[in-house]
């Protein structure tokens, strides 16, 4: 490994936590998994750190199952009750609702599609996505295309549902 652990941490930790938060919906859990990943990196320094770090992180998420993901969403809603974090109620409620709809739309994707999308959002190249997820590079375009289409359609459907509810 050419980079020191501190450099790796500075370079990838924010991105890793962001991806993990989007994946799990739980900030504390995202932080904990990221710490675990860097602890493992300290023990066995990876040669190609970025895909390695994200692959280990996603494996940890999968190992822990989906339960905490669901719990995490509710947790984030409850966190809104903390007075020092409460922005104007109307704005925040609308934003929270929108994010929750995005999360539900993400839930309609398979793990692989969702993870490819989240890695792309972190600026991963097709090569890095392929290495992180253990896929062939040639499959990444198709995987991303399917993920994007499903996410957009699921979100649009939830928007239409919300508008219909509001109108009734």
């Amino acid at each position, binding site marked *: 490994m050419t980079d020191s652990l501190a450099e790796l941490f500075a370079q990838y930790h924010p991105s890793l*936590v*962001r991806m993990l*938060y*989007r994946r799990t919906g*739980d*900030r*504390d859990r995202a*932080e*904990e998994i990221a*710490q*675990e990943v860097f602890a493992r990196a300290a023990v066995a320094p990876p040669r190609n750190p970025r895909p390695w770090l994200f692959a280990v992180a996603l494996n940890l998420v999968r190992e822990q*199952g*989906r*339960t*905490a993901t*669901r*719990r*995490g969403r*509710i*947790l*984030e*809603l*409850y*966190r*809104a*009750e*903390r*007075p020092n*974090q*409460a922005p104007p109620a109307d704005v925040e*409620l609308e934003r*929270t*609702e*929108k*994010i*929750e709809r*995005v*999360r539900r*739309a*993400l839930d309609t994707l398979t793990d692989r599609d969702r993870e490819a*999308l*989240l890695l*792309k*959002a972190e600026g991963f*190249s*097709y090569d890095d996505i392929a290495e992180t997820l253990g896929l062939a590079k*040639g*499959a*990444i*375009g*198709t995987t*991303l*295309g*399917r*993920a*994007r*289409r499903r*996410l*957009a359609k699921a*979100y649009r459907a939830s928007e239409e549902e919300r508008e219909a509810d509001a109108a009734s």
Partner: protein
Amino acid sequence: MQHLDEGILNALVDGEVPSSELESIQAHLDACSECRARLNETRAFADESEGLVELIEVPPPSKPSAHVIPGPGWGGGRFRNLAWAATVVAALGIGYITGTRPFTAPQDVAFRQTPVVGGTVGDQPVTDDLQPAASSEEDRATPDRAAETGVGERLADTDTRNAPTAPGDPEMARRQDTGPVGLADARANEAEQAPATRQVTTGDAREGARRERAAAPVAAEVAKVAAPSPTALLESQASGQVRALVAADEVQPQTVARRSTIAFVTVTLKEASTVLGGSLRLIDGLIPDRLEASASTVRVIYPMMGGELVLEQRRDAHSVIVSLTGPTGLSPDSLAVLRSRIR
């Protein structure tokens, strides 16, 4: 003529097509309006999905966090949540009345004093404890966790300073009537003896009140978002540590009288889950108003019939004991139905 597949179109949008292939692809696009339209659609999906994902931003820390590598099970970062809640408990200096002595204050006063409101049938309080009520000793932090945080020591110390008051004591009745916030005020007279404690107490009491005020709109938001399937959201979160629920004929009506009045603070869902070692249970189809916790007990409180339905879960060394208490007027049959929906 073979059209461009979805993988190629996405690779084009992402700039991932090798330059050696670009010329032939561009030639096809020039000649094929259908593929041009699909390329535009692919680009739109990519832009839209990217924008949606980027909406999800990492929230700021809810409290100062340290970079500690978590250990398995109880410990590491998750335990700090409990330590935080338990420290508030200790700082408040709220003791609890021993649970072995029947509570003789009028029921309505008693029920206002504690968050738990027992339903009644005739003169008998209706509770649905699924395990026999534990003595107040069991509500303390277990020794191993106490050693980890010192919380047990502080609670024990608090207990000594707040020894049980005689049932007819008007001071006790006043405290019962006012609850934790009032209790903080009642203790202001002790300021000369413990000024530092009073400052913490007053601040936390205010924060508690603010949280309670904030709880209603948040609960409404939770209801709006989670209502379609609360069960689905939480279907697999219970661990095997929770004991099997006992039958209705094992109901022990004396439980309310024996229930200890250990100090509770309002907590987040995760903090409540942490108190129980990750085995928090909820009632399917109902949206909690708030969660309260002591060192080893969590109360999930649901608004119901102008009162409160309280799902209490107490962790001991080997399991979590679950009990359900309904508001006044809730029939035993209704309580049984609600109990069957605990997940």
